[in-house]
C-alpha cells in the first residue's frame, strides 16, 4: 500500500528526515515510535501533503502512484487520512457542514453518489454515539473551544466517516486520560480490516496496549533505526530511547 524509499526532507534548510525507508502492506498496523524531534510529525504531514517541506530526495509510492505529486485533497480522495496531533480550530465553520462536505467531496472524486442529508446525519450520529462524543459538538464550529479530548474524538469521528484506506494517527493519545484513550482506541480498532492500513505515531507505548500493532519501528534522527514486532515497544518502554539512539550513533 505505502512504500517510502530513502526519503530526505528539510524544513527551512534544516534536515529532518534523512533517508527514511518504510513499507506498509494492506491490512497492516504499524507503529512508529521515537523521541521528540526525531521527525515523526514531519513524516505524517509530508504524507498528508502539508506545504513548507523541502523534499530533496526519495520517493513515496501509494498504491503504486507517486504520492508526493498529489494535492492534499487528492490524497484524501484516494484514501489517506491524517488524524492530527493538534487539530485545527475553524471558527464559523459548522462541524456537520464540514464533515458532510468532506465526505461528499471524496465521493464525488471517486464517482460515487453523494450522501443525502438524512443518510449522512444517521451515520454521523451513530459514529458519534460509539465514540461517546457529545452530539452538541456536531452542531458547533469545528474544534472551536473543544477540549483536547474532544478534538481527538472529533478526529477519529472524521476518520470513521471518511473510511480511509490508510489512516495515519499522529500522537492521537497525547493529552488523553485513560477513559478517553480506551474510547478512541475502540474507534480505531473498529476500523481495522484486511483492506485498511494504519500507521500509529506515538511517543509512548501505552497506546499500543489498546491498539496492538503488527510492526513497530523506531525513528531517530530522521531514519528508521530499528524495526520489530510488539516486543520492541515493550523493550523501549523499559530501557528508554537512549538504548537505541545511543546504539545508532555508535
Amino acid at each position, binding site marked *: 500500500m505505502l512504500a517510502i524509499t530513502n526519503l530526505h526532507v528539510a524544513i527551512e534548510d534544516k534536515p529532518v528526515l534523512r533517508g527514511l525507508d518504510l513499507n506498509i502492506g494492506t491490512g497492516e498496523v504499524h507503529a512508529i515510535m521515537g523521541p521528540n524531534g526525531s521527525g515523526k510529525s514531519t513524516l505524517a504531514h509530508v504524507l498528508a*501533503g502539508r506545504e513548507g517541506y523541502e523534499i530533496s530526495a526519495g520517493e513515496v509510492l501509494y498504491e503504486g502512484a507517486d504520492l508526493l505529486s498529489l494535492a492534499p485533497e487528492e490524497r484524501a480522495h484516494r484514501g489517506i*487520512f491524517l488524524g492530527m496531533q493538534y487539530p*485545527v480550530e475553524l471558527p*464559523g465553520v459548522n462541524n456537520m457542514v*464540514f464533515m458532510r*462536505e*468532506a465526505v461528499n467531496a471524496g465521493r464525488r472524486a471517486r464517482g460515487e453518489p453523494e450522501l443525502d442529508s438524512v443518510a449522512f446525519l444517521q451515520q454521523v450520529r451513530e459514529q458519534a454515539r460509539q465514540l461517546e462524543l457529545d452530539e452538541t459538538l456536531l452542531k458547533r464550529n469545528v474544534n472551536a473551544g473543544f477540549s483536547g479530548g474532544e478534538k481527538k474524538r472529533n478526529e477519529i469521528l472524521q476518520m470513521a466517516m471518511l473510511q480511509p484506506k490508510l489512516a495515519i494517527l499522529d500522537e492521537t493519545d497525547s493529552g488523553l486520560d485513560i477513559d478517553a484513550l480506551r474510547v478512541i482506541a475502540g474507534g480505531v480498532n473498529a476500523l481495522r480490516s484486511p483492506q485498511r492500513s494504519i500507521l500509529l505515531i506515538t511517543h509512548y507505548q501505552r497506546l499500543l496496549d489498546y491498539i496492538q500493532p503488527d510492526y513497530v519501528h523506531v525513528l531517530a534522527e530522521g531514519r528508521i533505526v530499528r524495526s520489530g514486532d510488539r516486543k520492541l515497544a515493550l523493550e523501549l518502554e523499559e530501557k528508554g530511547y537512549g538504548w537505541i539512539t545511543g546504539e545508532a550513533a555508535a
Partner: protein
Amino acid sequence: MISIGQQREWAQQLVTASADAVDAAQPDWMAAARAAAVQALATLPLLDRKQEAWRYTRIDALLEQHFLPADAAPAVPAEALNGCLLPAFDAWRLVFANGRFMPWMSDLHDLPAGVQLRSLREALTTDAGPLARWFGQMSRHEGHVFTALNTALANDGVYLNIENGVELERPIEVIYFNQCADTPLLLQPRSLVVLESAARATLVERFISPDQSLYFHNNLSEIVLGAGAALGHYRLQDESRSAFHLGSLYLSQQQQSRYQGTTLAFGGRWARTEYNTTFSEAGAECVLNGLYTVGDRQLNDFHLDVRHTVPGCTSREQFKGVLYGKGRAVFDGRILVEKQAQHSDAVLTNDNLVLSRDAEVDTKPQLEIHADDVKCSHGTTVGQIDPQQLYYLRSRGIDADTARRMLCLGFAGEVLDTIDVQVLRELAAGRLVEILGTAAAAVE
C-alpha cells in the same frame, strides 16, 4: 483635487435643478429647514482629506458626476420591481423605485392602532406633530455637505411612529430599488423612526439595483428610541457596481432602550455608512454590527461615532470585512466616553480578511475616554486566510477553492448570525456565497 468652489457649485447646481420638484405643499417648518440647509451648502467647509473623517475617502469621482433630481427619473418597469420582492417574507412593506413611493407595491394593511407608517411626503401633509418635533433634531448639529443636501432636497422616505407600549409582531421592510442606466440620478430618502416608550419593532431596509445603474443614493435616517423601546434594524446594501451610496444614521436613545443594528454592505462603487449614536439617558444599549465585501473598483467606508454622554450605557460594535481584488475599505470607529458617563461599557472590534495583495483597508478604532470607572476595549485585525486552516480542510478532501470559501463564510458568518430575520439572513448568506465564490476563485 476638488476645490471649495467646485464643491459648492456642485451642490448649488443640484439645488437649482431640483427647485421645481420640492413639494410646494410642505409645512412651514419643513420649508424653513430646507432653506437653512440650502444656506449651509453655501458655507459648509470643503470635505477633503485633511479632515480625519474623509482622510481615506475621496469624493472626487462623486463630484465629477452630473446627477439629476429623482423627479426626473424614468418609471421603473413593474417586472423589475416584482423581481426584487421576497415572497416568503411576511412583513409590512414600503417600496421606493427611483426615489418614488410605490403604493401598489407596498403593503400597509392592518397596522395596529398606535402605529403610523407611511411615506414621508404623505406624512408631511397629515402628521405634523411628532414629525415637526423630531425632524432634523438628531442630525442638524453634525451636518456636512451631504447631510445638508439631504435636508435641502429630501424627496421622500419613511415615516414611522409607534406609540407607547405598542409592539409590532411583523417586521417592516423598506425596499429602495433604483434602475437608471442613462440618467444618473440623485436620490435622497429621508426617514424618521420614532419608537415611544416600550414600543418594539423590527425594520429591514434593502438597497438594490441592477448592474450598470449609476446614481447617488444619499439617504439619511433619524431614529429616536423612547424609554425601554427596542428596535432591530437590519440593512442590506447590495447595489450596482456603478452606484454611489451614503447612508447616514442618527440615533438617539433614552433610558433602557435597545438598538440592535446590522448593516451588510456588498455593493456599490463608492459606499459609505455613518452611524451616529447618542445616549440621552442612562441604561441604554446599542449594538452595531457590520459586514462589508469589496472587490475591484469598490470602496466601502464605515464611520461610527458612538457617544456615551450619560452613565451606565452599553455599546457593542463588531465590524468585519472581506477584501479581494483591488477592493478598498475604510473603518473609522470612534467611541467617546464623557467625564460624567461612569460605568460605560463599550467593546469595539474590526476584523479584516484580505484575500489579495492589491486590496487595502485603512482601519482606525478610537476610544476617547474621559471617565475613570468604565469598561472599554477595542481591537483590530487585518489578516489573510490561515494556511493551517486551509491545509486542514484540504487534508479532508475539500478542494482549495471550496475550502477558502468555507473559511471566508465562517469569518463572515458571525455577523450574519446577528440578523434576527430568517428570510433576510438566508438571502444575505446566499449573496455572500456568490460574492465569495468570485473572491475565493480570484485568489493566488
